[in-house]
């Protein structure tokens, strides 16, 4: 192999005596995809911020192309060819693809400021071709799928002559097919000698696309392994520092009476004739590609979206659910896919978030009973093992996994009878994932009916009793979870026969 393009040795970084990186080594070579793993808060982002000059290191050396560097600003890192593809895309939807790629570096006629659009579009096409993808450079970026927007972003970075790409959870918002396209792009980049740092929680992806893995835990460098010489369990062990045992904990809930039945639910152009049921103590897994309508179906069941026709029965009785408030009154809770946009009030405290759906029950004549509220909050924090310095801390200060636990807590507080989970473990690290699975198991043991939508097929297979597969707004199959594998589900989810 070639010598490292980026080499970091003995990196130390502390914020107010709180050590977040202690003696960390990391390197990435040209033409290599190097995974950086660790639980939330392990120091992955901090390490990358030290590399790109957002933070100044307290100790250690950083060599880029064999030369010691001290970046003060990400712009300086970019000049040396180190760029970051952020989790939240920075595409401007109202500008064209070409305009996005050359934003701030537009090709103009002399110094007049008049843009040479044709020239720019021609150049944009060159970069997009390099990635092996066809996207019309004159198309508005906002009209593209998230996956293509991401590729536009990669093209933009390439056009600045990038030699090292840092990708932070690049597949978080992509469909299965888009992930495959992205992997093709990554392979092309590898061949062109680009060094890639790949940050992700998705183990399957890392074993598919990466060459080496480096693991951090609590700011310590644990080790670097070649993918070919390691396995899933070893990496998890390195990340959490203990054996977490079975990835999906065993469950022994007795499945009872039918809790909810949905019949012929239709919203024109979104989903069609959707029928399914879920029983007490059961987990119904819902698989399907992103954009298949699976989230929209759940929103309609929860009253957050209006279906045109269809009937929902709870305990055999037809009910009307025109708003989330009605759903809550019927004992339905929904943990949404996007916790920042739809799940939490980020600048409110952990306490206020935990009691939001229940605040009216905690109040007498509109006045919130502080003592009752505090009791409930401390019992939830304990039960869910939420790691927060204080219940008064703003929820945005918590790590992703703990934020997700707050979302769980806020719905557990109302003691739901039917719980809808949409991507319950997205962006959550391995340890917290397991805790969330255990909570789900405990709930089913208490007789709660759970519907779990997930893009992670191993999770669907590992947790569900039955699996419903959605494709283009229609239910393709409802399968007993016995002797089926990922391929069976994928075939149905992509429109093939189950």
């Amino acid at each position, binding site marked *: 192999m070639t010598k490292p393009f980026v080499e970091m040795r003995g990196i130390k970084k502390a914020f107010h005596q709180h050590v977040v990186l202690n003696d960390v080594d990391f390197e990435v070579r040209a033409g290599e995809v190097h995974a950086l793993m660790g639980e939330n808060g392990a120091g992955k982002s901090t390490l990358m911020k030290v590399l790109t000059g957002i933070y100044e290191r307290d100790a250690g050396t950083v060599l880029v192309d064999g030369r010691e560097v001290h970046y003060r600003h990400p712009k300086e890192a970019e000049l040396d060819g180190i760029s970051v593809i952020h989790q939240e895309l920075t595409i401007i939807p109202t500008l064209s693809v070409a305009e996005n790629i050359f934003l701030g570096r537009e090709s103009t006629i002399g110094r007049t400021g008049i843009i040479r659009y044709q020239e720019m579009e021609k150049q944009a096409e060159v970069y997009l071709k390099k990635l092996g993808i066809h996207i019309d450079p004159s198309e508005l970026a906002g009209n593209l799928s998230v996956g293509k927007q991401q590729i536009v972003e990669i093209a933009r970075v390439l056009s600045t002559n990038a030699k090292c790409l840092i990708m932070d959870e690049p597949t978080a918002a992509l469909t299965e097919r888009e992930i495959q396209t992205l992997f093709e792009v990554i392979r092309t980049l590898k061949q062109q000698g680009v060094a890639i740092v790949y940050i992700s929680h998705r183990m399957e992806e890392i074993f598919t696309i990466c060459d080496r893995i480096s693991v951090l835990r609590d700011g310590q460098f644990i080790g670097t392994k070649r993918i070919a010489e390691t396995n899933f369990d070893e990496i998890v062990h390195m990340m959490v520092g203990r054996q977490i045992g079975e990835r999906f904990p065993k469950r022994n809930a007795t499945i009872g009476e039918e809790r909810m039945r949905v019949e012929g639910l239709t919203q024109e152009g979104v989903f069609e004739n959707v029928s399914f049921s879920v029983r007490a103590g059961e987990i119904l897994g819902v698989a399907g590609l992103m954009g298949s309508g699976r989230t929209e179906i759940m929103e309609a069941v929860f009253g*957050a979206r209006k279906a045109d026709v269809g009937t929902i029965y709870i305990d055999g009785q037809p009910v009307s659910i025109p708003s*989330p408030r009605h759903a809550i009154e019927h004992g339905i809770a929904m943990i949404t896919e996007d916790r920042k*946009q739809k799940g939490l009030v980020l600048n409110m405290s952990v306490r206020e978030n935990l009691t939001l759906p229940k605040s009216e029950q905690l109040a007498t004549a*509109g006045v919130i009973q502080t003592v009752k509220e505090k009791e409930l909050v401390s019992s939830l924090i304990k039960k869910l093992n939420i790691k927060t310095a204080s219940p008064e801390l*703003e929820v945005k200060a918590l790590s992703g996994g703990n934020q997700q636990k707050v979302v769980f807590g806020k719905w557990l507080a109302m003691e739901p009878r039917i719980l809808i989970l949409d991507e319950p473990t997205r962006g959550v690290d391995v340890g917290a994932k397991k805790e969330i699975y255990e909570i789900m198991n405990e709930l089913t043991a208490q007789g709660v009916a759970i519907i779990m939508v997930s893009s992670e097929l191993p999770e669907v297979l590992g947790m569900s009793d039955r699996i419903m597969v959605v494709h283009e707004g229609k239910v393709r199959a409802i399968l007993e979870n016995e002797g089926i594998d990922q391929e069976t589900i994928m075939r149905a989810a992509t429109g093939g026969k189950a």
Partner: protein
Amino acid sequence: MENKWNFDVKKLGPLIGFFLLCIVLSILSDSFLTVNNWMNVLRQVSINALIAFGMTFVILTGGIDLSVGSVLALSSAITAGIMASGTNGFTAIIIGLLAGFLMGALNGVVITKGRIAPFIATLATMTMFRGLTLVYTDGRPITGFASDDILFQMMGRGYFLGIPVPVVFMIVVYVALYFVLKKTTFGRHTYAIGGNEEASRLSGIRVDRLKIGIYSLTGGLSALAGIILTSRLNSAQPTAGTAYELDAIAAVVLGGTSLSGGRGWIFGTLVGALIIGVLNNGLNLLNVSSFYQQVIKGLVILLAVLLDRRKEA
């Protein structure tokens, strides 16, 4: 949102500014620190403060209400008009308050059910209510009514335990709303909507109903301010309350409430209103020309917001 750090710094900032302003003015002018002058300042502040208290709720939800000045004028005209036709003060005041409340409710309905941005919706109703005031008054002040109605006369000019009645209203409303914001579901949900409306809706909060309630409250408080003003001037001016929305918004922002919603304190609004009132009064005492007064007021607002930004960084 209630952690120590926010609590201290955020609340002290405007307060320190207020005291500094008072110290400077008491050095520059002999008549500033007199009981008489302060009664005057507080009476003037009370009108803006009452409107700004309502505005605080509106801004906490991430909205804005530009129509408060017009609501004030129309409620004032209605109250005066009814009294001029011989109705007693009590009935007229109730009808005036109700009118303001309904105008606010209309704002709320247009914003929530019509899904129109608050800025646009209240810009439209501001124009409409002002127009209705001109129609109702025929563009002339309403005068010569209820000179012997004690209740009505008390509203703007009376004293209660030695404190001007408008100031008593300001204090009572402040205490009540402070409690509402701090201790009730109404207050909690106000913050929640401003912080994340979608998450609030999905948590079962009746977002539309709450917003309509908040705009109604603001309408009612604007009407109360209007009635106090009518009593003080003993006339209803068709142009009353013009640009009052700007002073109210300024008071809210000076107090440290974020225009993007979800963060803020009604105590800050009280201090903000006091700062504006004292500044107006001080500049008058110092014989600063009214043209320069506006320049200085604008500068103070800019400065306050800049300092506030610094602290958050």
